[in-house]
């Protein structure tokens, strides 16, 4: 009898016992994923007194639902801020994700298809000149003069002693350098970035602080390494023969990249885009420092609901819910592309 149950049509299909077990596990984890979100939804409908009295689970049964939190966030006192911050979040996240995807994909492609041999000495020279330039600015030399001086110094040194540099790095070193730029905690990075933006604002007159632009460029730089690492693994799968064929037919590098490589790697592109969109959408610490009243994003609004009277759970829940809805919709729309394979490259490469 067991024989009959276990014997199935395809070698890969599952026995009923395995199937039941799988469903129990799947539903179990689905509950783990969904329950906190359900709790948010319930909390958003509660009056403060219901939240503080104890755990109530089902609206209308345990407690009388109230729309006061939704009203406060969407139509009441906070509505103007919510709308403005929502617009900021949408603009900053989408623009930075798109640009990071474009730049990162190009760089990832370059790292898999070309050989780079940056000279170790030249890099050291560059850092030396840069440090010198910063010291010059700190001791009071006008920044424009310092810039010209160090660029001139760098070029002269590179031309004269540059040919002696033998030791060079490879593509994997460049990739590691890129990922290493994410290693310093944001707490340490954010003050210097703030100072830098302030300096650029004072010296050149490009006002950056409290603008969407500042957040956009910061997020691009922060997300680029992730794009490059994920896409690099992906590009390795695409057979190089296809590109060689295109080159023989007379297509330029750019043409090959746009009309052959990109369509083939669409699933990876889509999934990577989803990641960096979510990261930029949810980023908190950098936004906290670099944005002011005008360019605030939603994570800050969520954190701001922790008022002097303790966390305002009901407002917070509403904000978190309205924040995840667009991302979930995008994820549902893009899921079919992801399923076909992100990082296939590393598997077959």
């Amino acid at each position, binding site marked *: 009898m067991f024989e009959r149950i276990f014997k199935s049509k395809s070698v890969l299909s599952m026995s009923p016992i395995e*199937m039941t077990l*799988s469903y129990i596990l*799947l539903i179990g984890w689905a509950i783990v994923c969904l329950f906190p979100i359900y709790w948010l939804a319930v*909390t958003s409908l509660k009056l403060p007194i219901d939240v503080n009295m104890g755990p109530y689970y089902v609206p209308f049964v345990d407690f009388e639902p109230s729309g006061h939190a939704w009203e406060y966030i969407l139509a009441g006192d906070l509505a103007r801020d919510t709308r403005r911050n929502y617009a900021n979040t949408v603009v900053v996240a989408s623009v930075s994700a798109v640009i990071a995807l474009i730049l990162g994909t190009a760089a990832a492609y370059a790292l898999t298809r070309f050989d780079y041999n940056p000279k170790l000495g030249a890099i050291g020279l560059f850092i030396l000149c840069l440090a010198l330039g910063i010291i010059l600015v700190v001791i009071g030399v006008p920044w424009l003069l310092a810039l010209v001086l160090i660029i001139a110094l760098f070029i002269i040194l590179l031309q004269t002693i540059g040919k002696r540099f033998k030791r060079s790095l490879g593509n994997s070193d460049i990739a590691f350098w890129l990922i290493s730029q994410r290693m310093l905690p944001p707490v340490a990075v954010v*003050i210097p970035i703030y100072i830098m933006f302030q300096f650029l604002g004072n010296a050149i007159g490009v006002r950056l602080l409290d603008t969407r632009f500042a957040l956009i460029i910061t997020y691009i730089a922060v997300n680029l390494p992730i794009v490059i690492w994920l896409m690099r693994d992906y590009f390795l799968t695409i057979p190089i023969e296809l590109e060689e064929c295109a080159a023989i037919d007379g297509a330029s590098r750019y043409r090959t990249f746009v009309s052959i490589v990109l369509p083939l790697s669409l699933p990876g592109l889509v999934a990577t885009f989803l990641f960096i969109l979510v990261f930029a959408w949810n980023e908190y610490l950098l936004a906290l420092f670099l944005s002011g009243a005008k360019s605030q994003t939603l994570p800050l609004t969520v954190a701001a609901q922790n008022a002097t009277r303790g966390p305002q759970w009901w407002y917070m829940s509403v904000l*978190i819910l309205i924040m995840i809805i667009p991302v979930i919709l995008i994820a549902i729309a893009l899921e079919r592309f992801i399923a076909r394979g*992100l990082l296939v490259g590393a598997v077959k490469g």
Partner: protein
Amino acid sequence: MEQPGLWGRVQRRFEGSANSVFIWPAILMVLFLSIFPLIISLYLAFSRLKFVPGGFEIKFVGLANFRKLLVGTEKNHFLGKTSHPSLLGWLLFVLFVGLLLLFLLRYIRGSEFSIGGLIFRGVIVAVLTLFAWLVIQTLSPGGRPGTMVITWVYVFVGIAIQYTLGLGLALLVTQPLPGRRFFRVVFLLPMMITPVGVAYMFRMMTDTDKGPLQPIWQAMGLGLYSWVTDPWGARSAVMIGDIWQWTPFMFIVLLAALEAQSIEQREAALVDGANRWQILRNITMPQIFPVSLTLVLIRMIEAFKIVDLPNVLTNGGPGTATESLTLHSWISWRTLDIGGSAAIAYSLLLVVTFFGIAYVNILRTRVAE
């Protein structure tokens, strides 16, 4: 080739420099925002902020900030309180060192042996031994882990669980089950919530008095127990939140990798009589190994910077039990010890870089074999 005009020359020139055109925008972008902060915070790590009439001045103090962390007033906070390891601690330590020596021995016997490589690996083994000694000493009874060790616990325990869970779930939803697309989207949800939001959400969840899990706690007779007043309870709460949020990242990438592998190989193995466990171990795992490497590296780098959860959930407490390095740096920064804060950040950078380099070099070369 039939275009000798100016436009043609420009085009050819452009074509010839394709490699630069592709990579430089990204490099410059990262360089623009990373070099300056790196230098400034390095300078701050060696200096002390002092308030003087009419503002503040930054005074260069050399290694004082690091000395404070490693042997001075902040030592207990940063490295923890050491005590003599128990028997189990000794056993674990010997086992770990044995594994490291085995790794070194295998390299010496291997074909790619070189003196430089041996020195490089020797340094890695020595530092790892030192780290292991610190972990064993501070985690044994009587000791107290500092922020450094707590961060390692978060990173390594968290990633191990996230990877296992993510892989298990990905394996489940690649089975031909009806409704699996629904589960795929649902399993992604935790990643979509802003980390600050997750932190506050888990503060609700871990509230044993008014939180939704209160009846379960009551039933277990733990009605008076509070997660956040017990050091390991608070640490587990932080880790559970982290696992909840980041398992989806592991899940989706592994899922895609699993979807990409060919089905024929598995079918052939099944026909030959292999069981599921053998297939997983001998066919699936080697195929997804490279992806797993990239994935774990990315997660490791991100996990070292954990700050939102301990900050919101427990504010680093009880005492300093749940403080991660980033939170430690953040708290120093808030108390205007800018130099100390930068020194912690730089210690973190050194540690992450060390683990990153060790990880990439040891494991990548094994994949290449």
